[in-house]
């Protein structure tokens, strides 16, 4: 939090926040939770058209496929955690986006993994690469959601670092959509899934003596051990609960933990919440209310249900051996109140948590485009160089570690222009992601337009008509004027690109502060797209018959 924000909080609250309140505010006012540096610009993106059932604003977007079928889609980054602990970071990244899809009431049916690394010549980069892939494989495979495509890129600028983005789609009947906010008071808040530990409580946010005795603890708090076993049970139990029609609101616990999930759930339509923090099942001894409220322990979901339905819903959790607890209640008054062993330890106007002012940083254009001289090598040499580049070679080593066939829908499998999933006997859904950071670095506007165009071309290449887009914006510190400028240019490019094709963004994600040894990463917008294709019209890129003519179309 910046000093002027602390001042503002004091002013709005009329007093100093206490320790627990301060911790919750720190989390909610963080860039990650509040989108304070990006929100203003994201508003430029087109988000509505005839395909969009629900645009950005909740855990994932919803797209109309046909009258009886809706597709839920979202994308997430897990860059920092994966750079520290690639296996756990990448795996929990998968877990997080899958729960985002799940909490709209949809069954997750496919994943894409755009991943980026430094050059493979270095031991550390190889380690990051191998374990990011293993983390995605182990998690996706164990929860039975196929990873059907992605992108893999190696670039000097990512030495010692990694960008791990994951997109997920889910399938549901439109009438089963569950929102992430409540529209009535008196609902019980039920926390389901894993016990809460000290995961994800960052050393940077607190004076260190409050957090832990030694420095290693702080590292440790940045990583989490993935638990796909519990996640799979959560998927099945949640869908069964949703089918009862008695889940009034649903959210997963991600960044910001219980504080974020419950305050957003309550505050969106002006309600409040009371949380009894001591009721939260704890994995570690001697946890305090602050730790419990902001812990980012994985594989947890928050349900809002009416009192009279509690029994029916919790029986489902018990069937799946999932631990559940009523941790609080929705109240009429728009306040956020936390109790600990009968004592009130936090009491804030709820909008102080959910209504965070935006920040506009200084933006400064740069121009590094210059004329390019064609290297003087033979075309044969050039061809071999290109074909043997890790960026071009087959990615089969990766996707063969992913169960890309589970659930029995994968019609076009990894290795083609886009994956296609069978949705019914007649139609399939095409799914693809693209990004070109080197292009974006040279010219962020054109790089972004290019990413959109590439998605659209890849969808068209398999015979699909584009339906909707999501975007994941991986950038360095927005406090760097050049970075902030490139971010704004990127948004403009994404906007114009989508408008040119009549497309809308239904969800997205922003990840700032991606820096390697104090050097900013290249602007890295990743765009993922959905398309609808009649199975009979499917097209693949292989040449079909001898004697067929080959043509190039375009400029």
């Amino acid at each position, binding site marked *: 939090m910046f000093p002027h924000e602390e001042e503002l909080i004091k002013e709005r609250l009329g007093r100093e926040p206490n320790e627990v309140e301060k911790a919750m505010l720190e989390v909610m006012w963080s860039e990650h939770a509040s989108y304070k540096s990006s929100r203003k610009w994201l508003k430029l993106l087109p988000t509505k058209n005839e395909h969009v059932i629900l645009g950005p604003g909740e855990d994932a977007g919803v797209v109309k496929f046909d009258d009886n079928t809706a597709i839920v889609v979202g994308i997430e980054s897990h860059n920092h955690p994966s750079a520290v602990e690639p296996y756990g970071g990448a795996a929990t990244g998968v877990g997080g986006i899958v729960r985002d899809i799940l909490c709209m009431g949809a069954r997750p049916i496919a994943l894409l993994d755009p991943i980026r690394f430094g050059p493979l010549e270095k031991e550390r980069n190889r380690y990051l690469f191998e374990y990011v892939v293993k983390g995605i494989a182990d998690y996706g495979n164990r929860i*039975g959601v196929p990873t059907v495509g992605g992108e893999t890129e190696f670039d000097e600028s990512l030495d010692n670092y990694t960008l791990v983005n994951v997109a997920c789609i889910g399938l549901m009947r439109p009438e089963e959509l569950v929102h992430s906010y409540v529209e009535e008071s008196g609902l019980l808040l039920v926390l389901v899934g894993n016990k809460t530990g000290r995961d994800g409580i960052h050393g940077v946010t607190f004076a260190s003596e409050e957090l832990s005795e030694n420095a290693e603890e702080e590292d440790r708090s940045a990583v989490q051990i993935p638990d796909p076993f519990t996640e*799979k*049970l959560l998927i099945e139990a949640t869908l069964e609960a949703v089918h009862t029609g008695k889940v009034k609101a649903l959210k997963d616990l991600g960044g910001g933990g219980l504080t974020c999930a419950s305050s957003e759930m309550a505050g969106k339509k002006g309600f409040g919440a009371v949380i009894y923090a001591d009721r939260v099942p704890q994995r570690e001894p001697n946890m305090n209310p602050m730790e419990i409220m902001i812990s980012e322990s994985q594989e947890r979901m928050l349900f809002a249900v009416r009192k009279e339905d509690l029994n029916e819903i919790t029986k489902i959790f018990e069937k799946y051996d999932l631990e559940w607890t009523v941790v609080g209640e929705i109240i009429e008054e728009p306040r956020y109140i936390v109790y600990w062993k009968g004592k009130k330890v936090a009491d804030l106007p709820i909008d102080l948590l959910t209504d965070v002012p935006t920040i506009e940083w200084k933006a400064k254009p740069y121009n590094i485009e210059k004329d390019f001289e064609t290297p003087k090598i033979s075309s044969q040499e050039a061809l071999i160089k290109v074909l043997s580049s890790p960026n071009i070679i087959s990615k089969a080593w990766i996707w063969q570690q992913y169960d*890309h*066939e*589970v659930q*029995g829908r994968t019609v076009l499998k990894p290795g083609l222009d886009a994956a296609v999933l069978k949705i019914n006997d007649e139609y399939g859904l095409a799914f693809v992601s693209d990004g070109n950071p080197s292009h974006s670095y040279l010219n962020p506007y054109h790089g972004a337009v290019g990413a959109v165009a590439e998605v659209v071309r890849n969808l068209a290449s398999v015979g699909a008509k584009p339906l909707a887009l999501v975007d994941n914006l991986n950038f360095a510190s927005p406090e760097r004027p050049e970075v902030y400028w490139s971010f704004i240019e990127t948004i403009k490019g994404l906007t114009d690109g989508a408008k040119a094709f009549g497309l809308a963004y239904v969800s997205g994600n922003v990840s700032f502060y991606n820096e390697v040894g104090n050097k900013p990463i290249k602007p890295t917008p990743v765009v993922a797209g959905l398309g609808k294709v009649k199975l009979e019209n499917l097209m693949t890129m292989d040449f079909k018959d001898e004697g067929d003519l080959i043509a190039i179309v375009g400029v």
Partner: protein
Amino acid sequence: MPKFAVIVFPGTNCDFETVEAIKKAGGEAERVWYKSSLKDFDGVVLPGGFSYADYLRAGAISARAEIMEEVKALVSEGKPVLGICNGFQILTESGLLPGALRPNKVPRFLCKWVYLRVNDAQTAFTQFYKEGEVIRMPIAHAEGNYYTDSPKVRIVFQYSNEKGNVTEDANPNGSLLNIAGVSNEKGNVLGMMPHPERASDKWLGSEDGLKVFKSMVEYAKR
């Protein structure tokens, strides 16, 4: 119509598509949570997935579940019991089939399409195939490396090349004798690592697997 239980353990994940394949083959099928009973079923399928996340050894914990006692009873009544992938691992771990499934020779998960040679067309699950027939379907496993020292095993499927030759190159996981599927002596219990349910729809790349289910349904009618 014979009715099959498709048993769902915590972490099973091929249950829905397995039910679909059985229905397509002319049988009735129901997902059955592992805490329930197998009364009124004419056969059982243990589908693929990661029961108990493969912790300890793939299939080890599910094999000790109470419901496996009922499965054993059905087996001795002569009813068909099919284990696919994780289901195969559960069958060996529970002693219903001899041998063990060990980590692949390259100890990583491997998902790809393979050819299989049908070595035994006399079991409850292969009667619609011909001996020596070559079929195509995907594998997706990390522990599919079959090992046994028991002579009491019928080799039903072997990894082969496109022509049906059982070669070293065609062996994806290091299995003894390229074994991809085995049955008990009586032929009413089959375990196989490849996924016939993923090769039961023309859009998914092959319908070669459907005959496993058709054979099983036919057998259960007797």
